[in-house]
């Protein structure tokens, strides 16, 4: 699972029947300092999240099937929580290489 920010929503009339009636949101993984930013991906919403929310996202098919209460289908990225707060150390800064 990873932390992400909801940065948009996706409208798709024609989609796989497994996705019928599901809200699709654009989620951008939170950047790790010193690492290249990860691209935004499309996630199924299960917690009524909205644009601007900080969310917890799972990217695994069996997880998605359990959360949706459906047999396995073509869904693996799913929003499973809206984050109130995260406690703990900041991720360590990436060590900078010195000299050639």
């Amino acid at each position: 699972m990873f932390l992400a920010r909801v940065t948009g929503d996706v409208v798709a009339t024609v989609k796989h029947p497994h996705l019928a009636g599901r809200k699709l949101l654009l989620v951008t993984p939170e950047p790790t300092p010193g690492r290249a930013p990860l691209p935004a991906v499309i996630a199924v919403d299960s917690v009524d999240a909205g644009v601007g929310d900080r969310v917890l996202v799972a990217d695994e098919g069996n997880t998605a099937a359990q959360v949706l209460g459906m047999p396995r289908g073509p869904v693996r990225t799913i929003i499973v929580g809206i984050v109130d707060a995260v406690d703990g150390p900041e991720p360590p800064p990436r060590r900078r290489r010195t000299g050639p």
Partner: protein
Amino acid sequence: MLFGRVVGTVVCTEKVPAWRGQRLLMVTTTDPAGTPVGGRPFAAIDLVSAAPGQLVFVVRGREAAVALDNPENPADAAIVGLVDDVHLAPAGEGA
């Protein structure tokens, strides 16, 4: 799921029996605006009658195979939706 642009079609007369009757399209990954982000185009099973040039979304990995009626097939990418519209949060909100 990832955004992609259909960039071509693949025709295979001889293919894995589990894929009989399925269409294969070439897809390149894009950002939400549809701009290619680089990387090699890949072949994906088309489940929504997509056409070349269309912006679609794609599921990769084992979940692609599960998108077909018979999940016992070797697909690792499947087109599962046609993108009508993407609403992006205004700069500052969200990002």
